[in-house]
């Protein structure tokens, strides 16, 4: 595989090192001369000094035969443009962009970038998993379709406690995939399964229905 990495900072460097070590053909594009020298010294002649958004540089780098372009500079707008130009002008089959503002994930997707990676979002998810009071935790975004897997802890005072799964009014395109009860045993629910206090519910839903799903599973009985 031929992978082009845009941005020779720490992320770009370690990514290049790993991919290169696995035997892939790798090229790093970096504007800063000192960073280029460091990469060349450590990893060999796999670095090109230049602007990874500049079409002339992209031509020299051989974007036309790249299997993958990975844009990992510190600026979301530069990563967006590199990936878009890679797709529009060079028909690169797969593009991955690093994003800093987690809110850009959705926007990049709308603008045609295949995959985004956000360190901010990953750290947030870690923190949220450790906060037991947080009512709904996105666990995994499924490729395409806007579906995601979320975890919800059913509070003891929730109105759903004691109800059958089949009787819940879930939002459209949502389903309860797994219920883990308070002592940690998982079960795949049927329509007859009764929701218990402190159940951990793992559900598939559409992103836009997350709030509705949360309110179904966590609203208080006396509310």
């Amino acid at each position: 595989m031929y992978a082009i990495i845009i941005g020779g900072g720490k992320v770009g460097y370690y990514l290049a090192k790993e991919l290169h070590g696995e035997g892939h053909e790798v090229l790093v594009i970096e504007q800063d001369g000192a960073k280029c020298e460091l990469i060349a010294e450590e990893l060999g002649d796999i670095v090109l000094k230049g602007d990874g958004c500049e079409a002339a540089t992209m031509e020299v780098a051989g974007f036309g035969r790249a299997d993958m372009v990975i844009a990992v500079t510190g600026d979301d707008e530069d990563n967006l443009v590199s990936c878009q130009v890679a797709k529009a002008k060079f028909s690169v089959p797969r593009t991955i962009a690093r994003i800093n503002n987690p809110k850009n994930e959705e926007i990049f997707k709308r603008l045609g970038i295949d995959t985004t990676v956000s360190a901010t979002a990953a750290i947030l998810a870690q923190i949220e998993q450790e906060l037991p009071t947080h009512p709904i935790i996105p666990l995994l975004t499924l490729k395409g379709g806007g579906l995601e897997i979320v975890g919800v802890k059913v509070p003891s005072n929730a109105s759903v406690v004691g109800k059958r799964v089949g009787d819940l009014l879930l939002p459209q395109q949502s389903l309860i995939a797994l219920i883990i009860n308070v002592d940690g045993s998982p079960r795949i629910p049927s329509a007859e399964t009764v929701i218990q206090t402190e159940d951990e519910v793992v559900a598939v839903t559409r992103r836009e229905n997350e709030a509705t799903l949360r309110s179904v599973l966590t609203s208080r009985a006396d509310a």
Partner: protein
Amino acid sequence: MKVVIMGCGRVGAALATMLDDDGHEVTVVDVKPDAFRRLPAEFGGTRHVGNAIDPEVQARIGVGESDAFVAVTQGDNRNVMATQIAKHIFGVRRSMCRIYDPIREKIYRDLGLESISPTLVGARLFKEMLERAPEQAEPEA
């Protein structure tokens, strides 16, 4: 017409002033409050400090309710990203931007952005000026 201008540099400030003079409702957004010094004292539009590549900033300054969005910051990529957000997320029909790099400008024009490359426009104007008949030029002393 309600217009949002991103970047209060020379071009942004001049455009904002012209549109304001013509009676349009103009909002100018720039990351540096200092940039607004380029607007005349009698400028009647709105000044916002913020980075308009952030969709939340665009929402706050009312991009969604605007008729046009013009991105004229110094950064091509910033302009491209903000304009695409205005067009595709907020549905602003006239979303346009400056892209210095002529190749990149062509790519985004093909992708449907209204854009101008001042590099190309400037070079063309100089060429035309050079090719103009000599009698139109200043007479030599």
